[in-house]
């Protein structure tokens, strides 16, 4: 990776004193991930440019597997942008090579260290996750003029579009140590990755390098979040130290935001209404043993658990990772044996017959069927209605007709990337009637969410009850 730093301060060669690197010779430094070279492509009275070229050992990168991205991440791959793109490796190299300059000390010319001089930085490959808009939001408040050209993915295939890398030029007049601090913090923030494990000392690094500018930066929350690699605990530690009294807790705000972004169905807490209606249906039929088929992170499980009517609750999901999250959120590890007996979380699949699901009063299948490939619905129907055969089955699924009412949803698109289909009311009802006919159930339908005269409610619900002979 490469960074060049140019000044037109006179005499421009003073840059050598500020950086403590002599323009008259090239120098190399060993780093634990490769080598850094410092040389000056130009060094005249009018203009002086320092180039920092960092050679990252591409094999060592993978073989030693440093950092959190190790397993399965980009650092696991030999085909890797790290030797070329500006990243946390560059920050580390900056701190190693220009440690003294970063503190603002300049032994030979003490005043020069704090002197604001015209500076120009060029970064030929800066990853900007979040686009150049974010790049500008980071640097412009600090007084930079930003010039960014997005690199195409492949000139031979223009239809592939652009990459997330930019060739970036930053210009500002300020003391060199400030510029170095800005780069040190903001390069990994733009990259949104770290090659090393983000630990507690990372907070103090951020606070030290951010001294004097981070508190006032309008993007400080995003900076802290990304710099600390989304370690939520650390982020709030850091932010608490950055916050002025009386401001809202940004951690909380972030959580709300994430939930909102995750859901096209924003504007009304449809999910709450859906779970409420499911709960009402389950209580209405007097169920005491219930299955939550496709329980996900366990939102319905938590509601069921709070209600003493339900004596036996089993949550099933096919994703092991999601089940771990569900267990986490329920604090399942702190459950007593009796509690664990009352609520169980199991990996299972609705594509298979599963003897563990037999003998329940009711099952909730909330926003699940639309994730199944249509040819495999038959297996789902039999495994639930024929084999598990609960007394009541509550099924919810999106009502496709309502999609035209979502402002943010492009026409013809599904609400979720993994949806394999979304049904109109007629389609859902036809399917439900066929299933209830075949397996000996009756079915009634309920709208969930605000009902629109023309397109119905956003979610449709079928309540299937087993017929008694």
């Amino acid at each position: 990776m490469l960074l060049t730093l140019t000044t037109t301060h006179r005499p421009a060669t003073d840059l050598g004193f500020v950086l403590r690197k002599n323009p008259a010779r090239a120098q190399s430094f060993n780093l634990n991930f490769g080598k850094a070279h410092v040389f000056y492509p130009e060094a005249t009275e009018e203009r002086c440019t320092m180039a920092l070229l960092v050679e990252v050992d591409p094999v060592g990168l993978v073989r030693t597997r440093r950092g959190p991205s190790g397993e399965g991440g980009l650092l696991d791959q030999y085909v890797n942008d790290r030797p070329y793109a500006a990243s946390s490796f560059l920050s580390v190299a900056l701190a190693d090579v220009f440690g003294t300059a970063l503190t603002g000390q300049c032994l030979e010319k003490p005043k020069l260290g704090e002197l604001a001089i015209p500076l120009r930085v060029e970064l030929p490959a800066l990853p900007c996750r979040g686009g150049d808009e974010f790049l500008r939001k980071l640097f412009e408040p600090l007084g930079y003029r930003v010039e960014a050209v997005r690199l195409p993915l492949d000139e031979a295939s223009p239809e592939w579009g652009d990459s997330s890398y930019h060739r970036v030029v930053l210009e500002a007049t300020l003391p060199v140590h400030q510029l170095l601090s800005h780069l040190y913090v903001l390069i990994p923030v733009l990259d949104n990755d770290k090659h090393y494990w983000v630990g507690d000392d990372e907070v103090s690094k951020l606070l030290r390098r951010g001294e004097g500018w981070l508190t006032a930066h309008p993007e400080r929350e995003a900076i802290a979040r990304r710099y600390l690699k989304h370690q939520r605990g650390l982020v709030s530690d850091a932010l608490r130290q950055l916050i002025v009294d009386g401001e809202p807790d940004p951690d909380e705000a972030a959580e709300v935001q994430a939930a909102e972004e995750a859901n096209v169905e924003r504007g009304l807490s449809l999910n709450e209404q859906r779970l409420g209606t499911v709960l009402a249906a389950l209580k209405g039929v007097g169920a005491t043993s219930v299955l939550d088929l496709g329980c996900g992170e366990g939102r319905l499980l938590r509601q069921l658990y709070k209600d003493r009517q339900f004596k036996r609750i089993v949550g099933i999901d096919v994703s092991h990772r999601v089940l771990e999250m569900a267990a986490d959120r329920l604090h399942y590890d702190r459950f007593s044996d009796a509690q664990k007996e009352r609520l169980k979380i199991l990996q299972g699949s609705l594509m298979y017959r599963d003897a563990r699901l037999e003998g329940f009063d009711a099952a909730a299948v909330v926003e699940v069927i639309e994730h199944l490939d249509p040819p495999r619905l038959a297996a789902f129907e039999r495994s639930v209605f024929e084999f598990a055969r609960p007394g009541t089955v509550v099924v919810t699924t999106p009502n496709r007709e309502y999609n035209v009412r979502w402002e943010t949803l492009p026409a013809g698109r599904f609400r979720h990337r993994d949806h394999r289909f979304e049904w109109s009311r007629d389609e859902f009802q036809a399917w439900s009637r066929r299933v209830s006919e075949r397996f000996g159930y009756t079915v009634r339908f309920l709208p969930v969410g605000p009902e629109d005269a023309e397109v119905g409610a956003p979610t449709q619900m079928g309540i299937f009850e087993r017929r008694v002979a």
Partner: protein
Amino acid sequence: MNIVLPELSLVVLIGVSGSGKSTLARRHFKPTEVLSSDVCRGWVSDDDNNQAVTSDAFDVLHFLARKRLKIGRLTVVDATNVQPESRKPLVEIAREFHCLPVAIVLDLPERLAHERNRNRSDRAFGPHVIRKQSSELHQSLKRLAREGFRHVYLLRTPEQVESAVITRTPLWNNRKDDHGPFDLIGDVHGCFDELVELLALLGYAPSADDGIWRHPAGRKLVFVGDLVDRGPKVPEVLRLVMDAVKAGVALCVPGNHDDKLKRKLMGRNVNVAHGLAESLSQLEAYERLEPGFNQRVTDFLDALVSHYVLDDGKLVVAHAGMKESMQGRGSGAVREFALYGETTGETDEFGLPVRFDWASEYRGSATVVYGHTPVPEPEWLNRTINIDTGCVFGGSLTALRYPEREFVSVRAKQTYAESKRRFLEEGQAAPVLSAQQQQDDVLDLSDVTGKRLLETRWLGRVTIREENGVAALEVMSRFAINPKWLIYLPPTMSPSGTSQQPGLLEHPAEAFAYFRHEGVPRVVCEEKHMGSRAVVIVCRDEAAALRRFGVADEGIGVCYTRTGRHFFEDRATADALLSEVHQAVTRAGFWEEFRTDWICLDCELMPWSAKAQGLIQGQYAPVAAAAGSMLSLAVGSLKSATARGLEVGDLLARTEHRASLVGDYVAAYRRYCWPVDGIDGLKLAPFHLLATEGKVHTDQTNDWHMQTLSRLAGGLVMATPFRVVDVTQPESEADAVRWWEELTGQGGEGMVVKPQTFVAKGKRGLIQPAVKCRGREYLRIIYGPEYTVDENLVRLRSRGLHSKRSLALREFALGLEALDRFVRREPLRRVHECVFGVLALESEPVDPRL
């Protein structure tokens, strides 16, 4: 005294403390066969005489007894067992596992016990204990038979104990040593004419001397029962069967009708219905011609054994079927099951079939042949087959040839009786799906989860770890195609050993050496295409897809990836590709040549960019973009610095070299990318003709596969260049190396080297079915643009192939096993567990660059 024990029995020793039970047990049984209550006391409490833990000690004893009987091991209970309440659970356990409880009672003079106990320091109880036990024992003696003990042996003197001999006898149903071959005959019900016709068709003829029906090749007849009732010639049928059984050329198990007739003949009060009247009147007439015949019939029927276990346990015959836990066991319940089958209700309150019937739940490894309920056609379900095709009701009389598994049947000459439940509707449409296919609609989770041990033909037992199954379950459930299509997943492929030649990581020399060292003289080298692995199944038409795969409305076939996903997201592209392949197969005449309605091909589908677009745009191209921009500025800056007289010459040269390597890298990945519109631009290169009806083509050489498949070339299907190389001939090898250099010099991925035979065994068993040798330029997209720099190459050469190769073998064996089972028409769960296993193994951590 000779004590005869059935080979599987629960032997209960009964006697007071000190009566010599343990001594007797030690003398006649293996130590592991004896469960002693005192030993259990010791295990629980460290004290063999601790009476306080009696209840827990017996829990342990009963637990162990259950485990042993479950797997069919004779078990001896060494405890006093003088109280009825201590014997009761033992009789229940014996019943639970359908084995016979046998009592051996040691009723020795009381004083002997007193003496023995006095001499033992560890028995610290008074004589009153023995007295009490003794009186309980005597009260028990009369009751033992009523309690359920099938045999009771009483030893009254030390001499009797001393001279007792114990013999173990096999159960009557155990005919495991009888290997046939057999012809199994369905319910005859007095249809003598059809029986004779069927026997003749099977090659049997009455011997000139004794008139007994025999087969020239020594085959054996097995009748699944219900010889009598309803039909016109019951006595003739009985006579034929009785004679053959007596002569040792036939076996017969009883049917419910036979059993009822026997009871009637023995003078019991039975309801004369369901055709019994016909049997009785025919027998009465026959008795007049041949006095004593009825007695012979009675004796014959009375001696019939409920079911037989034949051919090393691989074949079980019973009239109404036999579930796994009862096979080879003897109890009233077993007999009841053999005669009547599962006696629970046939349908539930909604008219749905009850799913807990034994055949649909059957998971046993033995084939079960039965009759009892007439069916229009014999149909396999989970290795069970009902061969009662209702001859007496106007259907047919069917024989199953074993081990050939072929059916031979003759039509009924007339309808002799009306069936209460119509089983042959006139003009009745055949069911859309077979019983097996209907059952296969839903697989059972317990067949894929947990630690699994899978038996494969080529590699023996393959273990699937539970945690790997967890990952596979998600992939299989969320992304995989309909499991009915998924009859194979391809194995991973290992590279050749690492080359030490300058600038190279892989070279054919190592691949050739590998096979030579394993004793393989000839290999097949195939050009390796850089695309994505695809498995293609094509059927002759949709009807064939329904018939053979049980898949409806999903087109004439499927094209899926190595993880079992649809290759194409849109159905139209997939259909277009399948239609092209279908045309190619038709053109080449494969349907006729292989006498098949379907074909399964292992292929490479190009371009790489068709499937890997995300990878290219998310990883390969961005790296090139960043590298290009950064290195060109670096070269510029270094040139300026050189012009200023700075000593950066080495760095400049190195950086320029890096820039040129990145250029090579870009050229490498671009070669595998080209635009595709629908199927325009796609290329399919099949390299294994995996399977067609009745055959997995593992017996053909790899060059046969390539030659045969080259006949499909045309349109988007392409033939792959290949050559056979003799690895004992240096010239032959050198030729192949030149070819490889040519291929890779033009930017090709390289080649795959396979042993000539599809499955090859070496010194230590199965060897790699294929090894890849990738070209120097291709490997840039695997090991990074700059991997060829010496200091990088040196380190990259240390790579271990062991786990990759072990994985490749296990996946290979499982994939072929899945195909074998599919071709043998085994239940889908048996195919699915193998395919699931391949997917699970894929989640094992292995260096992804290999």
